[in-house]
């Protein structure tokens, strides 16, 4: 099976937020839940760079390691998913995650966060593939339909790549060689303990 990854080419990202609204559109994510967001560094200054961030579906995911109810699981495609029927909304995963991916539908004290929600790599959840129950709890399951996450598919400048780690790393490598610069595959060392060597 493929090892699914995200790769963000920050030399291409223009902070257009297509990834953000594509995610909302595909998964009907409610207001206030941002499975994906774009963060801009050095905003308005030379060296400004934007990075689109979501769950990176880490190798040995820290969220998984700290979850007290073991609601996380890793699919055969190496996508990190969780079971909302087990989740107790404790928020540990939020503290463990290096990317700020976990989202909670409510703000409150003492476990009233509600069920954690995060990017599923458009791979749904533990319910039956592409069932209504799966959609309502987790959103779309594009992987089961043979498609990739919509955020990356709709990225205006093709800065955000999603797919088999080997394939997208090769696309990025070719791009960097052709243009002569590249600031690296953002977040890869943290998420996958490796980097894209050119």
């Amino acid at each position, binding site marked *: 099976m493929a090892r699914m990854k995200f790769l963000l080419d920050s030399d291409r990202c223009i902070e257009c937020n297509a990834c*953000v609204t594509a995610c909302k559109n595909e998964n009907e994510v*409610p207001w206030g839940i941002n499975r994906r967001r774009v963060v801009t560094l050095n905003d*308005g200054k030379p060296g400004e760079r934007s990075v689109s961030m979501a769950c990176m579906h880490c190798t040995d995911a820290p969220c998984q390691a700290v979850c007290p109810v073991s609601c996380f699981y890793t699919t055969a495609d190496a996508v990190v998913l969780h079971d909302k029927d087990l989740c107790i909304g404790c928020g540990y995963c939020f503290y463990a995650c290096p990317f700020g991916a976990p989202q909670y539908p409510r703000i409150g004290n003492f476990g009233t966060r509600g*069920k954690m929600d995060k990017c599923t790599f458009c791979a749904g959840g533990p319910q039956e593939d592409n069932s209504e129950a799966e959609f*309502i709890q987790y959103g779309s399951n594009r992987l089961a339909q043979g498609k990739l996450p919509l955020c990356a598919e*709709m990225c205006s*400048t093709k800065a955000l790549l999603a797919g088999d780690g080997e394939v997208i790393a090769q696309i990025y490598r070719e791009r960097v060689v052709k243009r002569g610069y590249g600031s690296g595959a953002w977040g890869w060392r943290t998420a996958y303990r490796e980097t894209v060597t050119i």
Partner: protein
Amino acid sequence: MLIKRSEARAGKQRLAAAYAGLSSGGLDRRAFLKQAGVTGVGLSALGAIPLTTVRPAAAGPVNHAEPVTRIKNVCTHCSVGCTVTAEVQHGVWVGQEPSWDSPINRGTHCAKGASVRELVHGDRRLKYPMKLVGGQWQRMSWDQAMEEIGDKLMAVRQASGPDSVFLLGSAKYTNEASYLFRKFAAFWGTNNVDHQARICHSTTVAGVANTWGYGAMTNSYNDIRNAKTMIIMGGNPAEAHPVSLQHVLSGKEINRANMIVIDPRFTRTAAHATEYVRLRPGTDIPVIWGILWHIFQNGWEDKEFIRQRVYGMDEVRAEVAKWPPAEVERVSGVPGAQLRKVAELFATQKPSTLIWCMGATQKTVGTANVRAYSILLLATGNVGAAGTGANIFRGHTNVQGATDLGLDVTSLPLYYGLADGAWKHWARVWDVSYESMVARFDSKAMMETPGIPTTRYFDAVTLPKDQVEQRDNFKAMFVMGHGGNTVTRMPDAVKGLEKLDLLVVCDPHPTTFSVLSGRKDNTYLLPICTNFETDGSRTASNRSLQWGYKIVDPIFESKTDYEAMYRLCGALDRAAEKRNMPIRFQAEMFRNIEVKGQEPSPESILREINRGGWSTGYCGQSPERLKLHMQHQDKFDLVTLRAKADAPAEIANDFYGLPWPCWGTPEFRHPGTHILYNTNLAVKDGGGTFRARFGVERNGVSLLADGSYSKDSALTDGYPEFTIAVLKRLGWFEELTADELANIRRYFGENIDSVSWSTDLSGGIQRVAIAHGCIPFGNGKARANAWNLPDPIPVHREPIYTPRTDLIAQYPTLPDRRGFRLPHLGQSVQNRAKELAPNFPIILTSGRLVEYEGGGEETRSNRWLAELQQEMFVEINPADAASRNISDGQWVLVAGPEMPRDKWTKVKALVTERVGPGVAFMPFHFAGWFMQEDQRSKYPQGTDPIVLGESVNTVTTYGYDPVTFMQETKVTLCQIRAA
């Protein structure tokens, strides 16, 4: 960016609500009420609609057990022309998929394009016709609304004449609706018909057309991939046209191209540039002349190109000589060494392209600006080949098409103008007599006089009658698809709106017009569907036409533009009959247009456009050909846009979307013109020359090309435009077929010598010219000197409101004058502004955000977009913020010199080095707050946009381009203080 995102706000929560049933942590009652409070208006309004009469717009997840229909349409949010692929089940738009086959967007979207499905969920759409009665909105039926509106319009016509109605159309129309609305204005008997192009690229159209023939993008987004050097000046495509950046950045990467951004703001586009040049707002001409100074100084200009294809460059040299580096730096602030570098790259690392947008055009010197840009391209020989050109990024989805089809106070469709020859041409196409058209106007003179543009509509309401050169002031305004906050001087606009006898707004949303003024009565709102709910073609910025298919039926009680216009015509007929007025509409206007029920067919409207569209090459794009292109999108090349070798025969050799000019009849199968004025291709393959539009000689100097001609041309030198007389002189007249000749004689009788390529309805003249490799419009020189403009050679003129009052004496704005039936003050306002300048020390400029579009009503009502930009803000430099004790994210007050005394707008501060010291920036998409008054409660219940805010145009000031009355939105003055 603190102010961008606020957390813990709940909207209409489809997914969250679903959690409640399936998981334990659902919403309790208290939480529900808390969330409902935020969107309470929307929810309660939805509850109030009787479901029996309103089509529900609810969308659910895709049911994978059942078949899904995929339908292609075109994104409505900018001119790039991204294909949108919708998944539809049971008449509901349930999903959006990437449009991989489109050579323009290749699957991608920006934030707006990726969220268009929400527009057709439509929680906040206008759901049924409404009118104001004593300040309260009342629901009414379409029939009732149409009868009342028709009757009131006819009353205005009877009392004040046809010119007292202002018809404001839309760049969001399809081509067919644009044309229909322009045709309606002609049948109503006025030239007071306009649309958003006035306020985005009217100066481009005027300036560029006056330089080389047509006022449109010469190349395409895709062709930018061929450029080795690109200058983006006065544009921020990373936010305004994000998908274009795919081509720009790919070009930059593949060619290791130089990407130079010249802008007062360090924009998101500038963040990706290889060179960023910061200039003082309003000094574009000094900077361009500064670049040309280095080019001429070093002999980098393309001398052969200038000799063969440019008229009047020597006069430009004389003007440029006045701009040595020291003077350029004194006026614009740009160092000479940096401009030398830019000049060398642009002139020597070719092909080079110049990309611009509203930073160039929305100026009191807009026309002169774009003329200077074009001259820079001409001087370096960067027009008419791959990788070169004036890549003008238009704004709305179909602002190019709506411009082409004459939603304009100065022209009938397709740039025929208003002279009697133009009227006679269209009368022939429409199958009506010229005399019957004259009878519809107040007089033949008014018929040939340009109307009043949208930038000044309120002046035409409020000025004394004797200052408005028509029978009466504006008494009624009929608006379709246009925001109310897009025009400068909003406090004055409010006065104008309040004084109107009748205001009709037709739009998917109520728009700012519905809340801005204190109107209490005689105000109607008609729900129009979006373009996703109708069929029709749209012209992208690169002149390609794309056919969009209806995705779902119009939601709620909304109707298509076509149907609304057809119904209006019917209502007017009945009103005229009642008043014993002889004028009629429906029968004559729709004589050759197929109408199904109450809905005119867009296909048949396009065929009528084809029948009359010779001047601009809108004659070859039949609906059948456009539909084939949509069907075979994957068969077109990414860079050349040409059909690939494996394309089916019916599209073989075509350029994608048959970019105009697409000569001859559809059967002639011209492929369209990807790159204008390209002499490297034969005319039948999409090649061409500069248009011989300005005569054949001036002061003894030839205006025809000198030894330059398009590939395979039988004439190897310049030649004038083709007429029957020219064909006869060349001995080609006999090549017209008997049918063509019969057609010509039918319309023109026996004396046919003056029949030209643009008036011949048979297409014969075009066919014969092209058979000899000649372009129908002639082979002329581009004009560096456009003698008919106020400034034949562009000269620098300080903005009306300038902080550099010391430069006014040397570079004054034009003297007061008249234009477009109105007074146009220049120097008198500038002289007054000089006195005010010390109190308003910060330059204010405005522009786009990626999440929103135009006046923003549509996008601010889209919850997926609204969440991303929740507050109106002003960008202010840290130095200016520090001296005013302003910290990032706090409320500040902003005032302009023309606002009522002691009135301020209230916005959030974004303290950033993105703007230079002394410069502030505000986005132009916000409305709903007016000088600190929250107008949310004035919207019809449930239709208020999610996000409201102050409009920048409450602050912006007087200032108009002399050629087009383009407004000045990019340079004015303001004061900012902590709230």
